[in-house]
């Protein structure tokens, strides 16, 4: 006598959905290739700044992707991913400066070192949740960069910078350093996002999702929730470390490059992207790079006061963050989905 509502009546139409989540990746690959071609064709008519920003977008997208893996899938919050980026950046810088191996080795080292620190934190954090985890990662984000001031070999306040060398000659003289950066960053991001996508679809990803929504039930079914949480942290930190190394490549590796606001920005980007949507990472990255731009334009029009320049980007980001959480809690994509579902339901109801 139990009646089940036909809320999921539309489900059958969606049976073909699985094919879809390969498309965003394909679409993204095309997007990048197209963009790259476009940039090459334009040659030096493209502002170096835009190329630089392109690299930045890729880096942010990668960092956001790492956070999505952690928060969206295994439900653990990190307010301190900037710290993992810093760890990766410093590891890369130190490796490159002291050993000058091929670039790929440097990046691998960065990933491994960051992943190790993620494992350490994750191990301690697996018993924490909610605010305890948040507070701990917050403390990490605030405290870690200051460690650089403690130890001389970390370069102190001024930081370290490392050289990835010039682009290979066969790309011609027009292929500037920034374009080289952009390609490295873009390629790395694409590869890692693809890797993440596969991890999330694998049984680890599914286990994380189960552990997040109902840890008690998950452990009853034999999923070792704790261990998988640590794994999530490890992978997430590793990816963030790569993003940090890439950031260090195009900028300087110093405590001031990894402030608390970086961690917040990545979190904002992740929420905007939709905490479980990898496709949104590019959008998230885009937004994060555009905001300072917009802020600058606004402040210029408002008389260019220093207070405005310093604070407006933060204001916009924070307001966006709050709005995003309240209005599109699971990301704009989900919200759109809900909207369509609600409309569909209304149609069906009318039909009766």
């Amino acid at each position: 006598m139990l009646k089940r509502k036909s809320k999921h009546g539309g489900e059958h139409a969606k049976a073909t959905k699985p094919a879809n989540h390969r498309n965003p990746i394909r679409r993204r690959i095309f997007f990048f290739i197209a963009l790259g071609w476009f940039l090459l064709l334009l040659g030096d008519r493209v502002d170096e700044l835009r190329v630089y920003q392109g690299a930045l977008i890729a880096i942010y997208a990668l960092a956001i992707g790492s956070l999505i893996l952690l928060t969206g899938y295994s439900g653990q919050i990190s307010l301190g991913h900037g710290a993992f980026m810093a760890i990766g950046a410093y590891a890369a810088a130190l490796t490159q400066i002291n050993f000058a191996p091929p670039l790929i080795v440097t990046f691998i080292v960065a990933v491994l070192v960051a992943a190790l620190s993620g494992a350490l934190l994750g191990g301690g954090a697996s018993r924490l949740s909610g605010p305890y985890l948040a507070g701990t990662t917050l403390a990490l984000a605030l405290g870690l960069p200051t460690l650089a001031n403690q130890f001389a070999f970390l370069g102190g306040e001024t930081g370290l910078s490392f050289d990835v060398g010039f682009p290979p000659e066969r790309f011609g003289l027009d292929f500037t350093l920034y374009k080289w950066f952009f390609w490295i960053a873009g390629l790395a991001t694409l590869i890692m996002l693809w890797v993440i996508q596969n991890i999330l679809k694998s049984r680890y990803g599914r286990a994380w999702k189960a552990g997040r929504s109902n840890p008690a039930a998950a452990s009853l079914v034999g999923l070792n929730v704790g261990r998988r949480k640590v794994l999530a942290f490890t992978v997430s930190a590793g990816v963030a470390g790569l993003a940090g190394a890439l950031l260090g490549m195009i900028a300087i590796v110093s405590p001031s490059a990894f402030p608390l606001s970086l961690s917040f920005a990545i979190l904002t980007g992740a929420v905007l992207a939709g905490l479980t949507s990898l496709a949104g990472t590019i959008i998230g990255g885009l937004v994060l790079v555009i905001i300072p731009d917009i802020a600058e334009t606004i402040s210029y029009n408002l008389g260019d006061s220093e207070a405005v320049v310093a604070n407006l980007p933060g204001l916009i980001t924070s307001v966006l963050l709050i709005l995003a959480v309240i209005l599109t809690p699971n990301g704009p994509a989900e919200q759109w989905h809900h909207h369509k579902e609600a409309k569909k339901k209304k149609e069906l109801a009318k039909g009766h």
Partner: protein
Amino acid sequence: MLKVERLVVEHGAIRAIDGISFEVATGSLAAVIGSNGAGKTTLLRTLSGLKESKLGKVWWNGREITGMKPEDLVRRGISHVSEGKSVIPELTVKENLALGGLWRANKSELAESIEEVVTLFPRLGERMSQRADTLSGGERQMLAIGRALVSKPSLLLLDEPSLGLAPLVVEQIFATVSMLCRERGITIVLVEQNAMGALSIADKGIIINLGVIVAQGDAKELIDDPALRSAYLGY
């Protein structure tokens, strides 16, 4: 009089209560019987405002109370003792009792009401400044009921007060519940798995299964009905 009309309550996609209607005369005791998951607790939680109904209406003493919040219903004289000995373990016995009367503007009435409850449950009086988590199961149940009484309810909703208690204590609880109805005129809706015990003190019985009423009527008749006996009373 408590009147429930075509109540429908959902838990997500499932209808926990699928069209229930019944009446409980003022000053009488209705026993709601059913197995686990039948919808009894959901019924009480909907009546007391903790859960919203999808369809249907509820009246108490001629005024419609559908969808009203628990805080407001308490002010209308409806108290719900939820399942699982609903006391706050970290608070003392006295504080737990006081909870029931905090909403009242007149504080001296609060002291009076607490005194009355202590007279009714002397064991509580002995433990006034002890934390509630030091009490035995039976004492906690008394405390929970006591707190509801401090609100001076005219309608009392009790969710499985006998659950997990020793038979002797269960007898005492049922005796107290019966007394509250007969002597103080409180209308009582008693949800129980202990069908025999509940029906034997009730005026009316309502048997629920899978969200619908399977049978309702005079409690004595229900006890004597052989079909119902074997289905729900075990003999």
